[in-house]
């Protein structure tokens, strides 16, 4: 596998050559500092670009075109990474060897059509297309409670600090949706195309010179941009006493969500001991949380912790019976305190290292995870995965103890189910 990064002024092109796959995968990534009142617009925009283009008048026509390109997959997603909002457009297409000569170029041209030739007349998107997308967004917003785990995380973060970007709802907001019209959406499109930072990743078996030419031919980004805002989210001072927030719903299981902000630490501590510590604490089926809360005390079916470096936060999530709320919180608190006091063994550390190495080895298994890796390295300044494997192997138990002392349980949220039904 060979990685080359080309700074083309208005965007970076990342070429990852590998002959391990029959597909070519391309991910075009736009990112800019996140603004709460622009999230909804960003979602609507990325959806409307996939409804029609100047050449393809309907979504059906676009899907048929993708099907004709031997089932080219085209999709998008928008997510928050730290202080930034990131929208990706992804194209995955079979290598010409398995289709026909010129298929890849046609697919890239089609992606170029989606991004640079939107269905716009007189500076306006089409009203009918906008109303389809708006309706979809509205439905997504009003259905958000249907996924109680996600919803409990959203409400946890809002209870923690409404001003912090971590609390922004990535589905958007109804009041912002109402303000979107065909003209201001087009203005926002121009803003994204011109001002967002852009990175293009391509993974697969291709000739780098040919690919560079194809990208230059079909993607016209012009403006040169410089980064200023840091990626990592900062926190206000921690609360003196834990905040406990509750909300009711009509479910039978309750969802526990906990936010644990992390105090000031060096980059090494964030990239290494904390990552390893999380594997031990709640990273999987061999973790302390799983063994103690589920296996020993039968309090739940799912429980895990997740560490987000860019959010400077560790999150805990579990599905429990509401009657066991106090018991579970007490148990989780004790498990965290035990880690801070070093009540875990070198064997635990070694097992966590094995897990970590195994996840590093898995990166090269599929093109999307390869791209995700290079993207993360680019955005967050993480060491390369080959270097990380080396450095992580040297992390000591005492490093984990030291960094875990900086973790504090701040906000506890319970989405309390009010159904007691047995069956």
């Amino acid at each position, binding site marked *: 596998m060979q990685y080359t990064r080309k700074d083309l002024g208005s965007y970076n092109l990342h070429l990852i050559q590998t002959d*391990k*796959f*029959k*597909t070519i995968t391309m991910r075009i990534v736009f990112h800019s500092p996140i603004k709460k009142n622009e999230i909804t617009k960003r979602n609507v925009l990325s959806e409307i670009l996939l409804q029609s283009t100047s050449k393809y008048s*309907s*979504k*059906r026509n676009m*899907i*048929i075109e993708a*099907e*004709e390109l*031997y*089932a080219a997959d085209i999709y998008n997603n928008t997510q928050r990474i730290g202080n930034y909002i990131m929208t990706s457009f992804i194209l*995955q297409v*079979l290598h010409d060897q*398995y289709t026909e000569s010129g298929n890849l170029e046609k697919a890239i041209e089609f992606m170029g059509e989606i991004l640079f030739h939107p269905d716009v007349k007189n500076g306006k998107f089409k009203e*009918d297309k906008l109303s*389809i997308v708006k*309706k*979809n967004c509205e*439905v997504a917003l*009003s*259905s958000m*409670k*249907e*996924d109680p785990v996600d919803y409990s995380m959203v409400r946890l973060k809002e209870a923690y600090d409404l001003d912090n970007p971590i609390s922004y709802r990535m589905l958007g907001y109804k009041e912002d949706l109402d303000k979107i019209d065909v003209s201001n959406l087009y203005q926002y499109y121009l803003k994204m195309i011109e001002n967002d930072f852009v990175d293009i990743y391509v993974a697969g078996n291709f000739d780098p010179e040919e690919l560079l030419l194809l990208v230059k031919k079909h993607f016209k980004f012009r403006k040169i941009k410089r980064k200023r805002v840091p990626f990592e989210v900062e926190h206000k001072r921690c609360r003196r006493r834990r905040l406990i927030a509750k909300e009711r*719903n009509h*479910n*039978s*299981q309750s969802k526990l969500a906990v936010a644990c902000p992390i105090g000031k630490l060096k980059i090494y501590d964030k990239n290494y001991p904390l990552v390893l510590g999380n594997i031990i604490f709640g990273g*999987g*089926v*061999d973790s302390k949380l*799983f063994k103690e809360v*589920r*296996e020993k005390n*039968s*309090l*739940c*079916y*799912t429980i895990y912790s997740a560490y987000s470096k860019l959010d400077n936060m560790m999150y805990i999530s579990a*599905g*429990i*019976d509401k009657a066991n709320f106090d018991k579970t919180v007490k148990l989780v608190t004790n498990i965290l305190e035990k880690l801070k006091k070093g009540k875990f063994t070198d064997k635990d550390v070694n*097992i966590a*290292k*094995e*897990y*970590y*190495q*195994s*996840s590093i*080895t*898995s990166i*090269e*298994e*599929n093109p999307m995870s390869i791209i995700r890796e290079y993207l993360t390295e680019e955005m967050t300044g993480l060491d390369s995965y080959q270097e990380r494997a080396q450095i992580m192997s040297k992390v000591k138990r005492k490093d984990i103890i030291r960094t875990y002392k900086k973790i504090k349980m701040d906000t506890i949220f319970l989405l309390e*189910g009010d159904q007691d039904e*047995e*069956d």
Partner: protein
Amino acid sequence: MKKIRLQGLDKDLYQDTLSNGLSIYMLPYEEKNNYFISYATKYGSDVTNFILEGKENSVPLGVAHYLEHKMFEEPSGEDPFTFFSRSGSDGNASTSYDYTQYICVGNKCFPENLRYLLQFVNEPYFTDENVLKEKGIISEEIKMYNDLPDYKLEMKLRENVYHTSAKRYDIAGTISEIKRITKDDLYHCYHAFYTPNNMFVLITGKFDVEEAHRIIEEELGKKKSKPLPKILFVKEPKKVVKEEETIVGDVEIPKIGFAIKVPKKSISLTGLECDLYLNMLTTILFGSSSEFKERVRQDKILNDIYMEWEDDAEFKTFYLLASSTEPDRLLSEIQYELSHISIVKKTLERIKKVWIANEVKMIDHVDKMQNILFDDIIHYGDVVDNRIEVIRNMDVKTMTSLVKKIDMSEVSIVKMMQKKNKEIMDS
């Protein structure tokens, strides 16, 4: 050991059957790092009544799934999760209506992990205490799924489609049923269904074929095969249980569940060909590039759609689940589509092209190939080595004749809406 060429995919699969009836399937990849091992029994939650050694048995719902959970108990106290984690590997398991499988995924210590996986599934260790302990965990699992509106809708639809099939119940059973499960039930079902002639091992990814075969033979070769229990199914009537029902759910946007119970007798095709034609038919009718989809998109009456075909003893059942702000209009669009089927050659050819391309894409992914081969073994009794060829040979004539004969008269519909909306409708 047989070498089977997966046609059109540049890949060889190795197959063998041990003298006790255990089947082995192996698909090695030189260029990958990960391996997936599955050790499975063709026994799932479908089975609640069976005759073993002349005696009729009836066990509570959810036993197969409960058994799967309890297989992870070890007399030493160190469970399989811990063993696998030593090499950074993951252990897992899953139960369906027609199988139970135990999995190990990793990229290190293949021989040790394979041997351990086979050993722990071969050595059940159930005690009254450890069986009791699981009730809290599985109750939370059942509650977790029941809280999901889509899941609740699907379960209600199953109840309204099937009279007697176990597919009308949750795979995990119900909270009151699992409370009845005892250590003896688990041992009884284990000894009845976890026999080599009812089981298979499937491995994909990076590993050595010879070594894997040797370990499987060492661990499982001496196990004795046994006559399989006779599974008792009560005959399922042709009619659905209930044609229409509206239920209350905690949903802002109404949902619909739509099922067609098709007697297999009305379909002239069988096996893979039958499944390919049925799936292609519903893809042409309701898939992402269908005219239906474009129409309901323009009308803004469809939000999500999910569909699948299910195989039961004498029926093929089609499920379509969707959410819509106007459920009745969406339902009439679906029914209109079903009563005006016409298959155009150009469309069929395009979808064939898509499916063939997807087959080629799939071979890059060890995990996906593991799932495809697994499903083949469960549904067709063996791996399919010529899927691309079968797809290539599909034609409009066969599809049209299928459409002519298929009996789609038994339909069941479930609507889910908020309490206040249901009250308005009822009044």
